[in-house]
């Protein structure tokens, strides 16, 4: 910003500050505060009471008694191999789901970005359209499709392709299907945004300098769409790791995902401190890729885009 802009923009600048303050307050209130509460509980011990954990700060009639904090919940998480396995399983499922989204979403985004502006609008609308229906409802709909007596099995049986209904539901396959189906738009949109901005002259230039079509893709298209790939992958991966609804509704008994474990710890075992520790570790696991992404982006900007 030049000095001129800065002085002439003070009035709008102040308004902008106020306008930005509101969402920040919102985040502070409804994200940071619950996070701190969970963090606090993760250092407590479970007791049979209401609420079911020991307070962090002890107060008596004499006043402040001291701080009771324990790392036991965390040591428990690390000593009990069960949680480690589930974390890894969740990361694995989210990673594979993200990869599937990328492999499916990239050609789709590429195709859409190369259409005429009018067709692009229609195709993008088609990508966004499922959002108009409740997420929960859409996942439920898959049960109706994948059931042993569901639409797909019925159709295949009727066509004579199979004579035994396929086990499509309550397994990892169904969870991957659910993840890909639910999160594909989050992959396509950022990919589309970078691919649509891609200067087509660059592709011609590479071809002119002797690159075959696949070399043009590897040398030019792919590196220049990297911001979209990273953005899309994070948008899919992060919510997919903590996903609860999809594994709960479509997954089998052996589908281990951290979202379900969290639910079980909170509401079945009623061990709030361990459940809180589980979520804190999850947050830490997810913060790492975000920081990495920020780092890449700032480096990208320094290089002059």
């Amino acid at each position, binding site marked *: 910003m030049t000095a001129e802009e800065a002085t002439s923009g003070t009035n709008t600048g102040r308004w902008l500050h106020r306008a930005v303050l509101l969402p920040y307050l919102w985040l502070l209130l409804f994200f940071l505060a619950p996070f701190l509460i969970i963090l606090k509980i993760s250092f407590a011990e479970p007791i049979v009471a209401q609420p079911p954990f020991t307070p962090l700060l002890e107060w008596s009639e004499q006043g402040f008694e001291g701080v009771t904090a324990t790392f036991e919940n965390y040591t428990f998480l690390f000593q009990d191999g069960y949680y480690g396995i589930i974390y890894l399983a969740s990361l694995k499922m989210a990673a594979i789901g993200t990869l599937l989204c990328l492999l499916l979403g990239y050609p789709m985004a590429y195709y859409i970005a190369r259409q005429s502006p009018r067709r692009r609008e229609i195709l993008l609308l088609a990508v966004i359209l499922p959002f108009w229906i409740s997420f929960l409802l859409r996942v439920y709909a898959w049960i109706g499709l994948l059931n042993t007596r569901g639409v797909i099995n019925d159709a295949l049986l009727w066509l004579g392709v199979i004579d035994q209904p396929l086990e499509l539901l309550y397994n990892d396959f169904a969870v991957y299907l659910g993840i890909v189906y639910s999160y594909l738009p989050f992959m396509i949109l950022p990919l589309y945004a970078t691919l649509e901005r891609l*200067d087509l*002259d*660059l592709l011609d230039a590479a071809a*002119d300098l*002797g690159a*075959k079509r696949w070399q043009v893709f590897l040398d030019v298209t792919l590196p220049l769409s990297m911001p979209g790939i990273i953005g899309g992958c994070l948008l899919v991966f992060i919510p997919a790791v903590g996903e609860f609804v999809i594994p709960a509704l479509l997954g089998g008994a052996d589908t281990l995902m951290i979202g379900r474990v969290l639910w079980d710890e909170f509401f079945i075992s009623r061990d709030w401190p361990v459940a809180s520790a589980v979520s804190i570790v999850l947050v830490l696991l997810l913060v790492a890729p975000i920081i990495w992404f920020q780092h890449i982006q700032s480096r990208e900007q320094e290089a*002059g885009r």
Partner: protein
Amino acid sequence: MMRVGNNGWVQGEPLVRPSNGTRERPGPPLVRIEEVTKRFNGVAAVDRVSLDIQRGELFAILGSSGCGKTTLLRMMAGFEQPTSGRILIDGVDMTHVPPYERPVNLMFQSYALFPHMTVTQNVAYGLKKERVAAAEIKARVAEMLALVRLEALADRRPARLSGGEQQRVALARALIKRPKLLLLDEPLAALDKKLREHTQFELANLQYQLGTTFVVVTHDQDEAMTLACRIAVMEQGRIAQVGTPGEVYEYPTNRFVADFVGNINLIEGRVTHVEGARLKLHCESIGAELTALSEESFAPGGAACLAVRPEKIMISRSRPEAPNHNVLKGVVWDLGYFGDQSLYRVRLPSGAVMQVSAQNLRRSASLTVEWDDEVYLSWDVASTIVLRE
């Protein structure tokens, strides 16, 4: 073959270039375009164009936007396929050969530098795709960067270069593979005026040093005139005229070229008298008889269009004593002073307006001819261009 001297492409070096024409004209043409037509959705962008471009020539294709010049260029590069016709490069039919297999490189109007690569990586790209050995790539890139004076910026990304520097990177990248033919799409359009004038001489010098055949596509007639050995003027997908800058300017063969290249006064007339090459015409619009010379045969009564360049007309306040001149009388209606020259618009009694430009040869704060002066316009009969309708 590329030769790069130590003093390669240095500023201020005198221009050692034949004024017009190529160095070696004879021999088969490097590029032969045969009856090429390109239709987009049934509309002909390029319409039955035939053109020969000689080896070592700096050839310009001049036309306004939408005349088909860029489509023609893209067909030479291989990005578009002709609907019909053939394109031969160095005697080989290249009509359907993909861009990556042609001995042709293109410098894009937008430069199309790879933003994620440094200057060196951009320039080296073509050689890498050719699988040239790493040591040779290094040497040739260094040589090329020296040629375009970019050694100091070798590790920069394109976004951190000025427009002129980007243009030079694009040029270096397009020349590194030593193409038989270099195509340049509006090479100077993105530069500011001062830099453009400077760069066009550099470009012409570089072409002369390397001996590579250049084809420049441009909408800017000054650019075409100063750069090119020969110019093809295009109009609505067709070639209106091919010739040296002098031929195109002084001897346009049709009304479009006469009007498109430079300023000109166009006067409709009817032939009244023919005597050898000497024509007398009656021009209704200016209410006068004019004389012109033409090698083409005209019959009395036929229509013709006379054209006179503004700088060919002399303006004076007294009646000039000049035989073999056309003389008209009028009043200065408008005048523009540009320092080195003045542009007059003179209204004739019939109401028609003639453009006249005059060099300000003598130093004087006041002009000898001013607004509302009665003046005589005269020009040599031989300077009159006769165009058939």
